[in-house]
């Protein structure tokens, strides 16, 4: 096989915009691996054994600091695992954890990630996100799959004033435009 020396481009080309009280920036270099399963108890056992972790329930996340994993529990039969991408086969790293209890797919190149942060971040998102993002309702660590500007989006609160948004790479620029427009409307 021929040897190529290629440099990957991120979906949003490193987008970074700062507004008064709100920052919108692309998050790149993350491996994103989906684990689908039919037997939750089986996967729970596998994760407890390999990571000493209780699998979070739908709508919640868990962090494994030792391996820098972020586990997003998206639906009753699917989780996403995010972690720094170091190799070409992140799916194999997760398959090792899930054992034979999960169907593992590498989705790293399928998603564009944006972080909206700062004291105005919730206000900035309120025109585009239908979910109640009040910190008592959508608490730190919460995750949800929803719609913003007709685009499917996964939203995760990773801090009091910080949200991680994930949307399909194929419509990444429209998504970023929608988010930036939403910020500009309130700033």
């Amino acid at each position, binding site marked *: 096989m021929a040897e190529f020396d290629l440099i990957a481009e991120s979906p949003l080309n490193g987008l970074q915009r700062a507004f008064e009280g709100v920052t919108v920036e692309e998050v790149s270099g993350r491996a994103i691996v989906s684990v689908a399963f039919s037997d939750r108890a089986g996967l729970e056992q596998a994760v407890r054994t390999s990571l000493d972790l209780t699998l979070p329930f739908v709508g919640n996340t868990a962090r494994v600091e030792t391996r820098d994993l972020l586990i997003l529990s998206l*639906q*009753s039969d699917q989780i996403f695992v995010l972690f720094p991408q170091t190799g070409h086969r992140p799916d194999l790293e997760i398959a090792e954890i899930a054992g034979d209890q999960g169907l593992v797919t590498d989705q790293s190149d399928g998603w564009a990630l944006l972080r909206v942060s700062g004291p105005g971040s919730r206000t900035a998102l309120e025109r585009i996100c239908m979910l109640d993002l009040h910190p008592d309702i959508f608490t730190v660590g919460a995750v949800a799959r929803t719609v913003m500007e007709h685009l499917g989006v996964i939203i995760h609160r990773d801090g009091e004033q910080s949200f991680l948004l994930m949307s399909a790479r194929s419509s990444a620029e429209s998504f970023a435009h929608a988010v930036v427009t939403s910020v500009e409307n309130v700033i």
Partner: protein
Amino acid sequence: MIINHPLLGPRDASEFTYLGDASLIDRPDPEADDAAKQFHDYVYLRDNPVGEHRELWFHEHGDRSWLVVTRNTLTHEITRVELAKDVAIARGRRR
């Protein structure tokens, strides 16, 4: 319209797609003697009630779950939301 999802809490109806009468869960036995008649009724015959209606909604832009929503067709008031999976299991289906 807001659908109060049993796992996720209140979600806007625009995140869902609508399928129809929840009786679709009760798929007839294809081995039955009168299977053709049962499937005819299953596919074509629907009640069209004024008032309470049990119906299937799919949370496409959410957790991809099927729900059985009890909705008043006159007022759109939603009185009950269940996971279709739980309803199916309660009726003796495996999943």
